């Protein structure tokens, strides 16, 4: 009994010791993914005031309300002075109907308090914090406010269409007030359904896969070659080993800009060289055609990350014991046989690890494409990250953008699971052999 108790506490102590690490992993790795997924279930758009956040219940945006109501009063008063009697009467009726609902809302002391609080903040030109800004409301109340405002909009619109109003201000303010009614914006998996049938999503996914496969294969072959090369004994080896790393050490945005200048159809040196040696028909095609642009991006990526691949493989090469090669030499194996029979099998784990890193990296490619082509020409180099970025930041559609990033996450998770399965089997196999 006592023994098991001590054991329990030992176990607990163990958990206690890994707890900080678990917490860090949870905060920096898992929480953002869960959060993204959560957002992707809601119709969140920054350019729509009623959907600028996740709302799971009905409510009223007090900042907008407190801003709009006095404006409505003053503008209707203004407008009434300038228009004919029947229109003035209608405007008055509109104002009365809105004020009636306002009165109803004010029967709740919470509403009145909050209104005063927000109004004070606004008068002092201070920002209204989010927890003060949104007030939960009954569905019936919110619906009633919305219906009244929509009704008011229809009436004002009719007046405006009949040219009975002097300005469009009242109409605009009523529309603005409508934005203060918050409705739940849960959409469930609608975005995922939409994207799975979206041809642009599949096209960008296709571009991403093409980019990933081609660049990673080129990097593997070149990286392996460089790794074998710098593993040899020669004069100035240290210098070469350091120099190889330079492309990798330059920030991607900088090197992408550098490549952009070199690929430029007018003044780019590389475009000129390719054209002179007959590789391309015109210096302009590199960044203006689909295949030219795809080639340019892959070429720049290969240049940049081959050193990283080489470094990982080089580390792997150093762990292969020299005695194996000596034995092969004695047995009369050629260099070629040594490479395929000793180097490659011994390097398998390193290669898989390097491939895993690079595939995931290439799949998430953003900065290089963003700077070099911006996804163009005609979206032919748009990767899925670029698509998600455009959806989120150019169109302010955070819900849809989050759904896209979750899809990227799923793809990446699938790829890593695939690798880890091969790799894991390999590692376990090795361990059990020992």
């Amino acid at each position, binding site marked *: 009994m006592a023994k098991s108790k001590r054991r329990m506490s030992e176990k607990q102590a163990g958990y206690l010791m890994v707890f900080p690490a678990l917490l860090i992993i949870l905060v920096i790795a898992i929480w953002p993914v869960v959060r993204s997924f959560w957002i992707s279930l809601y119709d969140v758009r920054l350019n729509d005031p009623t959907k600028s956040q996740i709302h799971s219940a009905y409510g009223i945006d007090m900042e907008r309300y407190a801003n709009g109501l006095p404006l409505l009063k003053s503008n209707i008063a203004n407008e009434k002075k300038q228009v004919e009697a029947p229109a003035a009467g209608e405007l008055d009726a509109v104002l009365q109907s809105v004020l009636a609902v306002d009165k109803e809302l004010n029967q709740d002391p919470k509403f009145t308090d909050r209104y005063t609080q927000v109004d004070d903040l606004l008068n002092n030109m201070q920002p209204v*914090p989010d927890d003060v800004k949104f007030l939960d409301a009954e569905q019936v109340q919110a619906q009633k406010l919305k219906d009244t405002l929509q009704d008011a909009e229809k009436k004002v619109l009719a007046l405006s269409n009949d040219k009975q109003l002097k300005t469009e201000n009242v109409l605009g303010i009523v529309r603005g007030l409508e934005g203060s009614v918050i409705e739940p914006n849960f959409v469930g998996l609608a975005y995922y359904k939409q994207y799975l049938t979206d041809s642009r999503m599949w096209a960008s996914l296709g571009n991403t896969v093409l980019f990933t496969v081609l660049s990673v294969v080129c990097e593997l072959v070149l990286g392996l070659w460089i790794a074998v090369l710098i593993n040899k004994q020669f004069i100035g080896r240290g210098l070469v080993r350091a120099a190889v790393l330079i492309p990798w050490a330059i920030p991607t945005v900088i090197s992408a800009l550098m490549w952009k200048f070199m690929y430029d159809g007018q003044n780019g040196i590389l475009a000129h060289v390719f054209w002179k040696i007959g590789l391309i028909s015109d210096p302009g095609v590199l960044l203006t055609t689909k295949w030219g642009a795809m080639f340019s991006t892959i070429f720049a990526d290969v240049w940049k990350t081959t050193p990283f691949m080489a470094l990982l493989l080089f580390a792997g090469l150093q762990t292969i014991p020299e005695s194996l090669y000596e034995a092969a030499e004695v047995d009369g194996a050629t260099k070629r046989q040594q490479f395929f029979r000793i180097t490659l099998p011994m390097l398998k784990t390193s290669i898989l690890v390097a491939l895993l890193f690079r595939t995931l990296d290439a799949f998430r490619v953003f900065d290089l494409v963003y700077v070099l082509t911006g996804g163009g020409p005609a979206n032919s180099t748009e990767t899925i990250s670029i698509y998600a970025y455009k959806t989120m930041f150019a169109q302010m559609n955070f819900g849809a953008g989050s759904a896209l990033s979750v899809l990227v996450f799923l793809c990446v998770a699938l790829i890593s699971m695939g690798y880890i399965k091969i790799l894991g089997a390999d590692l376990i196999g090795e361990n059990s052999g020992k």
Partner: protein
Amino acid sequence: MKGWKKVTTAGLVTMMAVTMVGCSSNNTADNNKSTDTGSKDEKVKLVFARGKDTTAASNHIVEEFNKTHPNIQVELREMPSDTGQSHDQYVTMFSAKSSEIDVFDLDVIWPAEFAQAGYLLPLDRFIQQDSINMNDYIQGAVQAGNFNGQQWTMPKFIDTGLLFYRTDLVKEVPKTWDDLIAQAKATKGQGGTQFGYLMQAKQYEGLVCNFVEFAAAYGGKILDDKGQVVINNPGTVKGLKKMIEVVKSDFVPSNITTFTETESATAFQEGQSAFIRNWPYQFAAANDTKQSKIAGKVALAPLPAGDAGSAATLGGWLSGINKNSKHPKEAWEFLKYLTGKEGQKITAVDGGSAPTLLPEYDDADVQKASPLFANKDFVNGISKAVPRPTSPQYPKISDIMQIEISKAIAGQETAEEAVQNMDAKMKEVVK
């Protein structure tokens, strides 16, 4: 993407948390301070952001303002020349409730979206306090900054597509697009030029402007007065075909589909082409001996006409105040100066851009700055101008047009297909 998203989310969250904490704790401090800033003469620092300015105007305005307002110190921050990229950077900053920028320039298509998102401080109160007469401004530009009955921005300058040409190479100004094509072919290679015509054809907002000009010149229309999609008409198709003809011709640079304003202006100022389509600032920039090899040899004209006459995209820039600015009052002082008499005069004289403040056109220095500003027809034309419609959905419409036009001029689809695709996709957005 996953990692990037993670980093940004984490970054945004920490940034938000920090700024929110910063805000709430600063507010009380700020209040105490603001009551006695006047007596202590503390300098208030403001940041003014705008897209890349190739002229000296912005620096000049900031210098002058800092000289005349000793208690405020304005710092200029340049954003990318690609308006789409600027837009995205603003969105990132403002949705994190950042206060790093106080006053900033907005493309005429942004105010509705930014006002909806709560990035802008409404200006009505300030305008009333300082009794600024909004009727002195070009009404279209004022309207562009008005959304849901409130004024969110002040008009800064108006932009319109124009044809600039080299007076030493061009004898007769081309009247129609076909004239232009013939002359561009003929002048290519003369006087050290390599091309005949320059435009903006990268997949970005400028491509939409160029397209709209071609389409409208041939009687095409994108949206009608009620905001409904009417893009699928013969005029649009014809305009797009003419645009494809120009882009595919041998008198434009072979990589024209990577050109924004900056690239085309550079090539023009290097003396590489006889013609260019650009915004009014090109006149000041091309006559600036510091950056141009063709100073004094440049003139301007309306864009060539199609079957339905000449059409120019009306753009323009407005200025507004970040809602989370720590110094809204001082920011207003700068905004008032920037879009008022002094600021607009500098923008016109040094920057070559057309003022939105109508009395400026009577100013002798302004009239001297560009042949445009002394031209009564031009002034009458733009004072009636209505810029592109303001809709919070505009970025999505623009994105659709950019992709399809880009495909059409790259030869991936025909003009008819592109127009049909735009029609279908835009109708999904504008219901």
